[in-house]
């Protein structure tokens, strides 16, 4: 039968990702906040008002975590909501495009933005913060933070299915910003009141940050396997919820 050949499938995935990249990079409302917020915050709090390289190093990781969550939540949340509302999702579903291309494209873009954010932070850290890490540390940090965006992609899909294009940004900000603060991404977790430190464990961002801090050996000392399990569980739950929502969309 005329099932998709591997080379054709590859071409479609690549094209879809490229189109998504072109589409988003031409939207200043997406690009500017996504890139500038983590860079600016880091420049102000990590470098200009920071106290030395240790601080700059610590905050590079926390703003890095903050940074990579943004494109995952917004790219998927707002993207899926508006594609759905505009009927584009429906159209793509009836065309001979494998649905995987739709998701791979969005994951790809979220990763590309994350890489740009991390490279920017690393540049600021090295040039102005005096941060020096070993090659393995850099690689592990990037790897953890990039793979760590996946739970937030799943959360984004769920939000995108559940909310419309107008309300999705607000819903995401209401989750994203308090979660970032309470997970210790803006202000180090150990400075927060004890009660908030205890609450932090309910947020996936906290667990991702702890895994990233472990590269500097600056995590809170809980089990790394525990953080990983929480993130996996979180991903599974949101994928399942998103899957239900997705099927409901289809059958409606």
């Amino acid at each position, binding site marked *: 039968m*005329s099932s998709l050949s591997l080379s054709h499938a590859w*071409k479609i995935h690549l094209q879809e990702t490229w*189109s998504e990249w072109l589409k988003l990079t*031409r939207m200043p409302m997406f690009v500017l906040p996504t890139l500038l917020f983590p860079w600016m915050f880091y420049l102000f709090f990590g470098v200009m008002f920071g106290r030395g390289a240790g601080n700059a190093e610590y905050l590079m990781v926390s703003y890095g975590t903050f940074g990579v969550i943004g494109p995952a939540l917004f790219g998927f949340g707002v993207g899926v909501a508006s594609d759905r509302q*505009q*009927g*584009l999702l429906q*159209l793509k579903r*009836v065309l001979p495009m494998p649905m995987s291309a739709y998701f791979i494209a969005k994951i790809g873009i979220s990763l590309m933005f994350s890489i740009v954010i991390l490279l920017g932070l690393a540049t600021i850290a090295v040039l102005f913060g005096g941060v020096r890490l070993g090659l393995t540390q850099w690689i592990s940090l990037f790897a953890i933070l990039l793979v760590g965006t996946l739970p937030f992609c799943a959360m984004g899909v769920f939000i995108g299915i559940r909310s419309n294009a107008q309300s999705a940004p607000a819903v995401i900000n209401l989750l994203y910003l308090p979660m970032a603060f309470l997970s210790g991404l803006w202000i180090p977790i150990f400075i927060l009141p004890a009660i908030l430190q205890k609450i932090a464990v309910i947020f996936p961002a906290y667990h991702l940050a702890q895994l990233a801090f472990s590269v500097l050996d600056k995590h809170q000392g809980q089990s790394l396997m525990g953080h990983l399990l929480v993130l996996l569980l979180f991903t599974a739950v949101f994928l399942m919820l998103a899957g239900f929502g997705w099927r409901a969309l289809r059958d409606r």
Partner: protein
Amino acid sequence: MSQQQHLQQVSTPATGSLLAEVTGVSHAFDKLKALNGVDLQVKAGQVLAILGPNGAGKTTLINMLLGIYTPDAGQIHLFGQTPGDLSVRQRIGVMLQQAELAETLKVRELIRQFATYYQNPLSQQQLLQMAGLEDKADTRYGKLSGGEKRRVQFAIALAGEPDILFLDEPTTGLDVQARRSLWANIKNYAERGAGIILTTHYLEEADALADQIMVLDHGRIVAAGTPSQIKQRVSLKQVHCRTGIPVEQLHLHPLIEKVEVEKHASHSDDKLTQCTLLTHQAEGLLRDLLQTDSDLTDLQVTGAGLEEAFLALTENNPTTDNREQAA
């Protein structure tokens, strides 16, 4: 073997071969009947218009043909296969009623993106030309007019040189000029021998494009036929009056298709019959009635009270006026 399959996909199906077949399809949403016993057939080279007012079930039917919903009852086959299969999707083109494309992408980029989905797409240049978009290739979708946006959606629908083209209300919301120029593009593609299934609530559009019209109302097919047959039914007028002419004589009148008596003449108080006459030639009939019947009174001419669908579709159509009054 693989070469043979390849050939099958590239070649246009022979004229007259059955492309789409719907038999006895019924479907309900939340116990609300959306489609009720619908049958249709589309052969290669045929343009079928599904005509009906909003909420008639047109989009539901299209969505079933596209495999988005599975009907509660009945069968749908495209190329003898189940709608929604990848091999079926490779051979269709789709223009949905509401599908906005990415505003920040240029026309050329959108066409390239969607053409990639197909194994044997038409070239970008061909598609731009077939949709009349040559001078808009480098314009962003968001900067286009409503008519131009529709053209991009049309170009995308043609990308795989489809054997069946689905157009769900292709010109809704367009001005007359934009509508006519899109019609020309649709007609051009129809000449290539594909099957086209389009929905519309304009009789004029169905007439301009289709060789078969199916009128859908409340999920049921209320009329089907060629455009001239359908137009004839819509042109039927009702003449309401009270007349002194005996009913038997009215039945024999050559211009009257049907006589519906509302109130018979009685010898005591009223010597006139109150009735409704159906005719294709209201003017001629009126002339005749007024000449022969000096008692004629309460005269009123309205569009045919056929199915509500007919009224609705003619009301929605700015070019046909179905209500004329005479005294």
